[in-house]
């Protein structure tokens, strides 16, 4: 990578994710310093920036869509980022959280807040502060256009590095044997 004139702005977020994809991103270790010569972070769990800047180059999304707030954040990212990347199994196909899709939402909430052992006088939280859950978990490409996908649960640091460096170099990202994983 040769140093560009202007650093690319990269925003990241976790929707219905586990933060594992962000951890795997950090697994690029010292290469993070190299990366920071080429990019600066915008809104991200790693920064204190609250809203995505309108001139972001790359948005990286982990996690699928499980509630209304996830959808708002995702739309915001799409509006403000030139390139949107789905990072990890959850963003790509809903992931393991989508295993709730065959259960009615009310059954799940009842079980967690009413009937499970250890809950006494439980009630399903109803404060308007709280985002309403969606009836099913959805992959993010069902709501906005996604430009690139990095599979894995989580994708390995090598896979993330490969896609990012391919993109920064203007190459079409490609993962060969060993980097291509859905698990």
């Amino acid at each position, binding site marked *: 990578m040769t140093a560009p004139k202007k650093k690319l702005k990269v925003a990241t977020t976790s929707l219905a994710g586990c933060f594992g994809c962000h951890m795997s991103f950090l697994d690029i270790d010292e290469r993070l310093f190299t990366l920071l010569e080429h990019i600066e972070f915008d809104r991200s769990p790693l920064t204190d920036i609250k809203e995505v800047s309108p001139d972001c180059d790359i948005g990286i999304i982990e996690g699928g869509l499980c509630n209304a707030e996830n959808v708002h954040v995702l739309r915001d990212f799409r509006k403000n980022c030139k390139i949107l990347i789905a990072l990890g*199994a959850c963003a790509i*196909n*809903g992931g393991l959280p*989508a295993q709730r*899709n065959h259960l009615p939402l009310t059954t799940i909430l009842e079980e967690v807040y009413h009937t499970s052992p250890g809950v006494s006088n439980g009630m399903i939280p109803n404060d308007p502060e709280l985002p309403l859950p969606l009836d*099913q978990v959805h992959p993010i490409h069902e709501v906005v256009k996604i430009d690139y*996908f990095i599979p894995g649960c989580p994708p390995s640091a090598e896979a993330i590095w490969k896609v990012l460096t391919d993109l920064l170099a203007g190459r079409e990202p*490609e993962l060969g044997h060993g980097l291509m994983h*859905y698990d």
Partner: protein
Amino acid sequence: MSHTFTLDGKTIPFAEGQTILQAADAAGVFIPHLCYHPDFKPHGSCKLCTVKVNGRQTASCTMRALPGMVVESETEEINGERRALTQMLFVEGNHFCPSCEKSGNCQLQATAYHLGMMSPHFDHFFPSRAVDASHPDVLLDFNRCILCSLCVRASRDVDGKNVFALSGRGIKTHLIVNAKSGRLADTDFTLADKAAQVCPVGVILPKRLGFAVPIGERKYDKAPISETTEGR
């Protein structure tokens, strides 16, 4: 073995009666496939083995080799269509590889890796079919079934038991267990059956054996499917 055809420009010898896929296999050339298994008659459902023969698409697992055929397989066009077919199989089922015991040993997954499938692209169906855990030694997760019918063929033609069948029409087609109750426990199925070994994906799983092989040592960790014997 006096006859030959060409596959992507390479001369492939074949014996009378062999299909294109069988001849390619024997010559060590990989053509993606999911419902074909060398021990059984071809089925022709997955269409992953599609090639172009003299300019027209056809399933190489059912098409007999003929002298002088010009066959194309590893082209951008055909691999693109194979990728789309694989994506369709992924969205039709619940393929949550991160928690699937077959991950790393699964032919569907390895084929998707081979084809460079970065995402399933289409909207998911999220089917909801009950798991059958009734059998003491075997678990069935029907949500991963790709309807290749290998278990049906193995149980009927090798084990002589007829434990499995495909039932229903269109997208409602699904695998059933041939028992009045519909439960595997009420059949004479055993782990020693051929049908217990053939599922290319994670439907028919032996109980208490999951996740025994360390990551890195599973079948397709070691080599991509195209370089694995018989592509499996």
